[in-house]
């Protein structure tokens, strides 16, 4: 099973969009760095992510949310992980694909 890692803001290119299109059922999506803006509720991107959450698991890195001042805005149902959790995810999934 694949873990997709998205590190770009969904507003600056189509990385997240392509990722969501490519990601199969039951795969994981992890938001890091500027990618964490994709995990936020009430944005223009939120509906796409919520739709994808129906059959995929979503994660977001806590320290990158905190740095950007957006820890409080995460879509309900997305799991917030620390660096330890990040490492665990990369071992839980068979393959990691980074959407640069």
């Amino acid at each position, binding site marked *: 099973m694949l873990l997709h890692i998205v590190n770009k803001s969904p*507003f600056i290119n189509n990385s997240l969009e392509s990722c969501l299109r490519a990601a199969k059922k039951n795969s994981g999506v992890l938001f890091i760095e500027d990618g964490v803006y994709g995990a*936020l509720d009430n944005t223009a991107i939120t509906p796409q992510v919520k739709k994808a959450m129906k059959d995929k698991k979503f994660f977001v890195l*806590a*320290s*990158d949310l*905190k*740095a*950007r*001042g*957006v820890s409080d805005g995460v879509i309900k149902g997305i799991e917030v992980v620390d660096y330890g959790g990040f490492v665990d995810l990369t071992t839980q999934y068979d393959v990691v694909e980074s959407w640069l």
Partner: protein
Amino acid sequence: MSDDEMMQEGGTIKKFCYVNRKAPYGTVYALESLEVVLIGAAFEQDVSLIFMDDGIYQLKKNQDTSDSDMKNFSPTYRALEMYDVEKLYVEKESMEARGLTEDDLVVPVEVKTSKEISELMDEQDVVLSF
């Protein structure tokens, strides 16, 4: 260079506009722009700052880089006023797309529609894009 020398050499005051479109930490653009604005403030020009697209995230409240080994430069935007940089504009459409309001920002700003922003850009002598 002293202010007097500037006046003798430079003469007229020009309208400078900095356009900030990048999120704060993923790239170095935001911090670079802020430094250029602070350095440029010594020349006492007519400065405007526009925040649009992900640039709006530069002004987000509650930034805390203590777990990230980066410098949190968001408090510095609150010092701009002391540098006589007082015209801060935020594009309404960009703010709405991100579900943000003025209350989410570290400094008071003037919200302008994209049409008003484009008019503002058109009035400038110099536009610097970051």
